[in-house]
């Protein structure tokens, strides 16, 4: 659906035709649910979070700036909510204070471990590895490579500094390589 059509539907909802919100849901549900399920590493939690995202979007619809892509706006709401959920989980590591971290060097050089695995057609093991990433890495990674948000948009959604986002994504991939490599060794 092109942006003009989406804008028209949004306007219909704002004008009181609330049923049109169901059409917006139909367009974006798969994207948003996929994002939430992946970020929260759980289908059930993803379902709840997707529902919350649409509820919040409905309530905040009047604040949506039609000049920006609607999908990105939805993703920002979803990311914001998922991030809150992750932070409320005691076992998740959402500690993003990386000021003291030094040595931003790759632990894996040359050919990417991920690429090697994909050649073996094992996407499932990468998804499993993604799920086992600390939340602070998983959330920005999914926002970048699933939602296609820019670093700036991710920073805004997660209320982090842009430099922090860059570092988290960098570290996320490094950690992902390490996990994948380890699981390969265990096979």
């Amino acid at each position, binding site marked *: 659906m092109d942006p003009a059509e989406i804008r028209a539907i949004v306007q219909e909802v704002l004008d009181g035709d609330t049923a049109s919100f169901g059409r917006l849901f139909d367009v974006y549900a798969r994207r948003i649910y996929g994002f939430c399920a992946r970020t929260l590493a759980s289908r059930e939690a993803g*379902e709840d979070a997707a529902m919350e995202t649409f509820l919040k979007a409905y*309530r905040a619809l009047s*604040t949506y700036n039609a000049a920006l892509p609607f999908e990105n706006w939805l993703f920002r709401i979803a990311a914001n*909510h998922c991030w809150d959920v992750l932070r409320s989980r005691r076992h998740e590591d959402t500690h993003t204070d990386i000021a003291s971290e030094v040595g931003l060097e790759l632990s894996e050089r040359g050919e*990417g471990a991920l690429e090697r695995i*994909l050649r073996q057609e094992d996407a499932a093991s990468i998804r499993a590895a993604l799920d086992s990433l600390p939340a602070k890495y998983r959330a920005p*990674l999914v926002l970048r*490579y699933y939602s296609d948000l820019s670093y700036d948009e991710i920073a805004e959604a997660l209320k982090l500094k842009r430099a922090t986002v860059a570092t988290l994504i*960098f570290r996320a991939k490094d950690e992902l390589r390490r996990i994948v490599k380890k699981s390969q060794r265990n096979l």
Partner: protein
Amino acid sequence: MNHFDALTYSRYVDDDLAAAETAAVRQHLAVCPECAAQLRALENENRVLRSVLVEEAVPAALRARLLTALFGQGPSLGPAMLYAGGILAGIFAGVYYLASLLESESLIQPLSWLDPMSSGSWVDWLFRTFFYFYEEGWTMWLNSVERLAALAAALVALRAVLPWLRRRWPSLLGVTLMAVLLLWLSAPVASAVEFRHAHGAVVKVAKGEVVAGTLVAAGQTVVVDGTVEGDLVAAGNRIEVRGEVKGNVIAAGHTLIIGGNVANDAILAGQRITVEGQVGRNVFAACEHFDTADAANVAQSLFAAASMGMIDGKIGDSLVAAMGSLQVAGAVAKNIRFRGGRFSLLSGAQVGGDLLARTRRPAQIDPGAQISGRKTLEIIRRTPRYMSGSFYFFQFVWLLAAFVLGVLLLKAFPGFYREASEAVGSVWRSLGLGLAVLAGVPVAAVAVGVTLVGLPLALITVAIYVIALYLAKIFVAAYLGRRLLQIPPAAGYTSLGALFLGLFILVVLGNLPYIGWLIKLVIILGGLGALSWQLYQRMKPSSAA
């Protein structure tokens, strides 16, 4: 050769570098095969990640859940509403019927408002509630509030049934309130209102003076020796009506004396109240000492709650009293109903109808007293409430009524129900806010109400307040049930089992000996706080999510 660091390459493949940096990296890659290879690997990884992170099939129920949460359009909403409405009506009918079987006198009275044929006025209902409160303690007060809860349930049902109303509910409510307010303000006032007040001095309507309309008077002493054509609304340390009031008297003060002639009702609250003159209709009184003198004549009924009372003179209809002790020496044309510590019917007293006295000490009936109807004297024995079957029956009814109301709330306002319940989880915020609302709203309502112009607003506020007090426990129960069953929020607040479990636990905790009342207070504070918080969240201008 100066290689760039790995983070820079990572940002390069994600298009995050500024133009100048991007150009510099490109220049370097053209001459450094090692870095170029690393970069290709990073780009391939990004492709891998994008190919792995794919959309997921949306669970079938999500759409329906969302629309139900947003607009209350659940597929089974209609039948569920009917079902719940039927249960609610059944509960009320059942309670009424069983109550009449169990205790024909004492339970009928507080529940008589359920009787559609009852002609009791609101003031009457208010006083009955007060009497019941006086007799049974504050826990029973919540039962009386069921009337308002039923009203709330009816509104909830109405709102859910009519989609049009549902969508336009806030504006419709606003328009209605405004209309009521405007009507109130612009209604042709039959008689003008006159305000008189004097700090630490006497406000007086002198003998021979006529106040054409309603008089609102406040002062150290308020004396009416003349005539007030409308109502008299008075507050002061001492209020004396020696002249004539052609409307109602509504008065509060330390000492109140109704000596002259009041054409309509007298509604009085104070420390000492004495009726010496004529009252054309009823007297409603709440005070410490209550007397009616020999010359007093109340054309209709007298309702009084007091620590001590002495009734002389004539009462044209019935006397209903709850007092620590009461002596009756006058004439009551119809029935006397008394509940309290001691009751004495003195020599010379006349009762035209029945006498029902429920007392803690044996009632004293002098031989010279006349009772035309039935005489029923009962001694109130205090037995532990846990020992009676009706206790468990009413607890069950309480539980079921709250459950049905919870289900109605869930069906009609799923989003609000869920969020308000979840807000209970912020325990300290809820308790603090709950305390502020619990204490603050009555104060605010009184402050607004005394201006008279704001009276409708104050009454509406009080009604909403009372409904909120009743609903408070439902949100606490929903939260408690969900946490105990460890269901995530979105699913937990559609689970009726969780609600029922929560309510059940609240009933048990609230009835614990010694600390039950404290637990009930905490439940009300928590629920009220969460409810208020959520209302605030809904009302404040929405910010970006």
